[in-house]
């Protein structure tokens, strides 16, 4: 038989990769980790007016095991940080993290003993949405960037 020439299959594998990416990017199950004022903006995005469901991310799950995108919405304090890490660790692969609002991106205007200076010091972040709080359009823009990222990445199939 000899060796299998993989190059013959490259078209197939990239198409498969694209197909899985396409499916994944439109079936985002988010886990909203809402702690502070940004939550209002999150609710506005999730409700009828801005309707995040148009982008295939309409269904929040309140168990990390059932979610694949972690939305960290609002200020994270050092008291809360171990819980955030635990929630992240409990999510199954593939998983992505969105930092929603400047508090989660960098700590925002809080420079004090209580606040974590950006959640990327604790868990990896895929998309940062700045703003205090970000406008819903801004959030949708961030979501589309995340979808682009999901589409383009190599799809691990376990």
């Amino acid at each position: 038989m000899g060796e299998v020439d993989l190059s013959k299959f490259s078209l197939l594998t990239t198409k498969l990769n694209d197909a899985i990416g396409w499916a994944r990017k439109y079936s985002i199950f988010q886990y909203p980790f809402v702690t502070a004022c940004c939550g209002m903006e999150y609710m506005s995005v999730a409700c009828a007016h801005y309707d995040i469901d148009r982008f295939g991310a309409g269904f929040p799950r309140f168990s990390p095991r059932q979610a694949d995108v972690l939305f960290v919405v609002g200020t994270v304090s050092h008291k809360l940080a171990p819980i955030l890490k635990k929630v992240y660790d409990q999510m199954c692969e593939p998983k992505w993290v969105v930092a929603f609002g400047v508090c989660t991106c960098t700590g925002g205007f809080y420079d004090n003993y209580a606040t974590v200076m950006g959640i990327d010091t604790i868990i990896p972040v895929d998309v940062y949405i700045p703003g205090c709080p970000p406008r819903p359009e801004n959030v949708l823009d961030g979501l589309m960037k995340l979808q682009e990222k999901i589409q383009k990445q190599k799809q691990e199939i376990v």
Partner: protein
Amino acid sequence: MLTDVIKSRFPNIVTQACVDRVDNFIVIKREGIKDIASALRDDPQFDFNLLMDLFGVDYLHWEEKALRFEVIYNLYSLRKKHRLFIKAPVPEEDPSIDSVALVWPAADWYEREAWDMFGVRFKGHPNLKRILMYEEFQGHPLRKDYPYNFRQPLVGPKN
């Protein structure tokens, strides 16, 4: 005047009394807080049945102030509709004062907060532990000598 009445009633406890616009203030010796608190609550003349607030102050950089900390009680009477602020100076070397959690149950969490933020110990409190910060936290963050941005993370990099 309410403050005058209180001062003549407790001459050994009250050291100063004054009225600033509409607010009544008395300054007391910290040893007397329990006595004066239960008397102010139970005496129908005062009838302070509501402890609205209790908090600490750190006067570290204030030169006239010999005693470093102060615990301030904000009392209100729902029936008589009058209000009183009690200030109790607390020295730095022994930052402690008697708890009033058994006089007004509302004081329970306020005293835990003042302990957590300023390190003022409330003697006789049923459950004096941190309420806002985590148990691993060292020090008391609202003391003026605590560096405001000194972080003590549980996970992740240090500062």
